């Protein structure tokens, strides 16, 4: 899979509210509510302001959550990033 770069939603575009095991995200641009589970909220929180691809995000997740098996994490992060893009919560950079 090509490692595409994505960009987080502009600041203020998303309202993110953790509700126990689920996280509710209100997108002020589309007025849609998204319900997501880990690791999507953690990924969004670590996207930063600049372009971010799966390798970079996987590295940040590994540092933040002390994960191993770098390659496996990168592949799964790439899949989840594509899902976030499909929901409109991140955009291709």
């Amino acid at each position, binding site marked *: 899979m090509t490692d595409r770069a994505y960009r987080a939603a502009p600041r203020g575009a998303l309202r993110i509210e953790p*509700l126990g095991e689920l996280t509710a995200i209100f997108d002020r641009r589309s007025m849609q*509510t998204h319900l997501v589970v880990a690791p999507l909220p953690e990924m969004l929180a670590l996207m930063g302001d600049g372009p971010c691809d799966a390798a970079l995000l996987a590295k940040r997740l590994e540092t933040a959550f002390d994960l191993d098996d770098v390659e496996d994490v990168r592949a799964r992060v790439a899949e989840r990033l594509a899902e976030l893009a499909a929901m409109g919560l991140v955009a291709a950079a």
Partner: protein
Amino acid sequence: MKYVSRIAVGPVQFRIGSEWREPVAALDRLYAAYPRDDARPADATVRLFAARPWRRWLRPSVHIGGDFVVPDALPLPLSMGLLAAEMAMNLQVALGWRRHLLLHASAVARDGRALIMSGQSGSGKSTLAALLGEGAWRLMGDEFTLIDLAGGDALAFPRAVSLKNQAIAEVAARVDPARLGPLMTGTPKGDIRHLIPRADAIAAMHQPVRPALLLFPRFGGETAIEPMGEGEAFVRLTEASTNYVALGEAGFAALTRLVREVPAFGISYPDSAAGIALAEQLWAEATQ
């Protein structure tokens, strides 16, 4: 419209027009004790009209209209005009109300706090609320509960309770017959009979109360209590709200606040007595 009435239920002022006298007369009887202000502009307009002008004389049947119309709204025979009026009133509120988050839920209040019960038709939420409302509780509503968008308080919508099938005998045994409407048999929802809420519930209908407990009742099966997480309660209440999407971020904020502040449980119960005992038990735990 030949016959017109105005009814205020909670914060909603209805204007109801009909081509026949009967449905309006029946409504006026059910809502005789409600505050009435004919000068106040209507929030929702309900029209009961004939499909064809001549049908009014040949085979009277009631069609439902108003600010919002669902294409498959059933024409009902005139003997069910009261049911048609009730369905039309619900429809106008469900589709048109924007001032509060509207939950398809019953509610009762005690000591200034609210127990909210959400469930599908047949879950028993309406019967439980009616029975609790005959005891130490104030009936807030058997069908809709309104949540204040800014403060999070629950507001009452105490329309006449729509008792169905077995619930009719159960409630009728406990109340003054003067508080019951006519029995309508063989409606699309089975047998229906309306119960006029107690005078104290009508008098207090404008008093907001703080939600303290959320229950998702399921009638039938063994008695069971299932604690429900904030996320699941949120999902279920978005499904139970008729105006969540239309309210945008205000609805999102009100609902996240509600599920965070108020404990939620799914309950199963084999009969009303067991359901009431569960509600009382969970209420005692939530408000101690």
